[in-house]
């Protein structure tokens, strides 16, 4: 049991990295990766939201949709739950811990439309994960996202100071860096798990 949970974390965070091999959450990956500090805060917020949303999505699926044979409604239910949940988390943090809200608050609305959150909820259902496995997969995926976005931010901080051919300035060089990172992450595919 323990080894399988560790395997889920390694698979979701490294082997099937959510950004670099599944292409989910590209929007914020390219948009909010200018500085390591902001990237790390966004990563923290994603870990937080994904853990909660995977848990809630799993409970809803197991105790509401499956018994009523409404499995085909999962897309609608999950997206609404995630949108509401993010709003509630934002309000809750604002009231209870202004310090965390200061650090993560502005990123929370962005996460609603982050397809990675919905993607994880749906993948968990497709893989038939139980509650603990779902939460583990959610956290693992979010860790993968955080690793990728912090690494990209690190690369971009260096790129800023180098002399890049004019057509490649801006988005193209960021995409090229992501391509090289994706090649590096392909190496994890050969891990014998």
């Amino acid at each position, binding site marked *: 049991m323990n080894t399988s949970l560790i395997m889920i974390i390694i698979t979701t965070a490294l082997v099937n990295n959510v950004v670099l091999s599944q292409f989910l959450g*590209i929007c914020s990956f390219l948009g*909010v990766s200018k500085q390591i500090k902001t990237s790390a805060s966004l990563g923290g917020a994603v870990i937080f939201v994904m853990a909660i949303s995977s848990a809630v999505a799993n409970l809803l699926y197991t105790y509401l949709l499956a018994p009523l044979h409404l499995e085909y409604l999962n897309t609608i239910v999950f997206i*609404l739950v995630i949108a509401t949940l993010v709003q509630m988390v934002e309000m809750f943090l604002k009231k209870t811990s202004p310090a965390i809200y200061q650090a993560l608050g502005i990123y929370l609305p962005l996460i609603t439309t982050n397809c990675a959150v919905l993607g994880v909820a749906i993948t968990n259902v497709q893989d038939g994960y139980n509650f603990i496995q779902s939460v583990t997969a959610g956290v693992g995926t979010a860790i993968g996202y955080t690793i990728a976005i912090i690494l990209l931010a690190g690369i971009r901080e260096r790129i800023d100071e180098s002399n890049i051919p004019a*057509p490649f300035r801006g988005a193209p060089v960021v*995409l090229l860096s992501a391509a090289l990172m994706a090649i590096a992450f392909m190496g994890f595919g050969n891990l014998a798990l």
Partner: protein
Amino acid sequence: MNRYMERIYNGVIKENPTIILMLGMCPTLAVTTSAINGLGMGLSTLAVLIFSNMIISMMRNIIPDQVRLPAYIVIVASLVTVVDLIMQAYVPGLYSSLGIYIPLIVVNCIILGRAEAYANKVSPDLAIMDGIGMGLGFTISLTVIGLVREFLGSATLFGKALPELCKPIAIFVKAPGAFLVMAVLVAVLNAAHIKTAANKKVEGCDGCCASCSKMCNSDAKEETKA
């Protein structure tokens, strides 16, 4: 050019959602491993976009302004579920190769973006034409990117094997190839001085859904402070 044709021209060329507006990057990068997959993804999005634009335009006077985004999400999610079930029944091969990206059409920025920026302001006929234009623009871009990646990565076109000219470069149909092709595409557009979302200051999340704008603004504020 009448105003219907103008919408089609706008969607396919002037404001092409993939190449000029840079919206819907996730499916663009993920499913373009072959031209067929790109075409299938494009057409499914086209179907959702036409109906979501139509319904949202017809309901624009009924939906209260404060709850419009949740209402749009429900409409789009219902349409995506319909497309999902139809594809599962009639094109199971394509359905399984597109996999999770079919339900994820719900969070495709193009759809909510068009609802918010255009469909909720105009009459249904124009909204439908806008949906067709934007959907076609998305379909064409995905198919072309898919063709390029398929040609380089597996030396086939629409699944048909080509006479062997040289060994296929397998990396183009793997994950890094998607980033590489996009990078070169944007660089070519930059070199040709075509104005895209990528050469503006806020790249990537520009115009991407309602909630992103808040983020972009706060990002910009931080920059001016520093």
